[in-house]
């Protein structure tokens, strides 16, 4: 099929890029442009010019969960942790905004899961968590979680079948103040609360039985009010996140 009139071709390309060409006409343009270099050139002309309108829109940092799910979708076996751009931190995007997007989807699952999770040790400051549970004989998965711009890190060993997890803390997080650090399991439906992380020493926590390693395990740590998130969903910034890999 050919579009004869040069004027019509130009206008179709312009309206395609602007977006006022829609529905079947839009798909038809895409088919035509694939086979027609001159039409593509018109399209690119408008894309390169009108695209500059996008530069006047204020940037908004997306929720960290977007990156985490994106990694799942590209089938990344080895999650690449994102650095938090330092210069963006003082901008203090309101927390409800950071988490609002996933709240709807996560709420149902998180609430269900939370109502079933085991009681976690209270964690006021010092070496806490420790339930003195013996470490799983053979931890099936291991995760290293490190908080950027600090020495704080945890080695997490998980055994989802046994519903067990042990955590060893190292380093220090001087900025903690009157806060707790809470661990989340990022399920396809959203974050599931696991418990408060120790800032030193070792501890163990029960894992909700519903969680399975199928499709990979991604963990995240958020900064929460002392004692943990009051809502059952993350309310503070994500300090770090990463995958748990099968232990050798």
């Amino acid at each position, binding site marked *: 099929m050919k579009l004869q009139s040069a004027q019509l071709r130009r206008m179709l390309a312009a309206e395609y890029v602007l977006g006022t060409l829609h529905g079947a006409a839009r798909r038809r343009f895409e088919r035509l442009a694939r086979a027609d270099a001159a039409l593509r050139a018109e399209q690119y002309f408008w894309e390169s*010019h009108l695209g500059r309108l996008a530069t006047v829109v204020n940037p908004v940092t997306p929720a960290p969960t977007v990156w985490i799910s994106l990694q799942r979708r590209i089938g990344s076996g080895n999650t690449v942790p994102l650095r938090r751009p330092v210069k963006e931190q003082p901008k203090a995007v309101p927390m409800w905004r950071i988490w609002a997007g996933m709240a709807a989807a996560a709420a149902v699952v998180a609430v269900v899961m939370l109502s079933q999770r085991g009681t976690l040790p209270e964690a006021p400051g010092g070496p806490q968590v420790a339930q003195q549970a013996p470490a799983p004989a053979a931890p099936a998965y291991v995760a290293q979680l490190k908080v950027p711009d600090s020495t704080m890190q945890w080695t997490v060993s998980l055994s989802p079948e046994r519903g067990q997890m042990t955590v060893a803390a190292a380093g220090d997080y001087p900025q903690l103040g009157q806060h707790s650090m809470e661990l989340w399991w990022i399920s396809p439906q959203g974050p599931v609360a696991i418990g408060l992380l120790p800032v030193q020493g070792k501890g163990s926590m029960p894992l909700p039985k519903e969680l399975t390693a199928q499709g990979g395990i991604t963990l995240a740590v958020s900064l929460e009010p002392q004692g943990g998130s009051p809502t059952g969903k993350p309310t503070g910034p994500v300090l770090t996140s990463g995958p748990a890999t099968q232990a050798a």
Partner: protein
Amino acid sequence: MSSAAAEPERLAQLLAAVSGGDQRAFAQLYESCSSHLFGLLLRILQRRDWAEEALQDCFLKVWQKSETYEPARGAPLTWLSTIARYRALDLLRMKRPEVEMPEEGEEPPMTLADTGQNPLDSAIEGEGIGKLRDCMRGLQEEQRRSVLLAYYEGYTHQELAQEMDAPLGTVKSWVRRGLSRLRECLEAVGGSMERE
């Protein structure tokens, strides 16, 4: 302006690395561009959940097809904005009927007030868009407004007619004459007269 706008060469290198399957480059690209694209998507889609969906789709496409980037389509960030915006337009056409009434308890749609700006003004006053701004200024008021509303709101002709309270045929000709004049102006000014 976002840092990403200032470093097209680095972004082009990242895109090249991403087309070779480099996940670290992909992460860096996401770090550099996601907030810029997310701001644009929020502006068009007005809902955070949809904007997140579109952002993921956009980067997924970039991961799978980063080799389709051509400098003729603009600077890397411009191209990414185009990909993001096309995805947003498709989502809008699918979902727009619901846009007016979110379920109770759901996050209310973002409004212009939430984004703290009016890009329709920024587009003709703002720095950074050079000759496009100059050419926009040369349009008649209705032409300019209909083009900018279509760009930032993703309006169809019908929606434009409703928004601008004008007959459909009139709005169509505003859009088309506006685009024709823009094209003439952009070609006349040429690439060499870029100025701020």
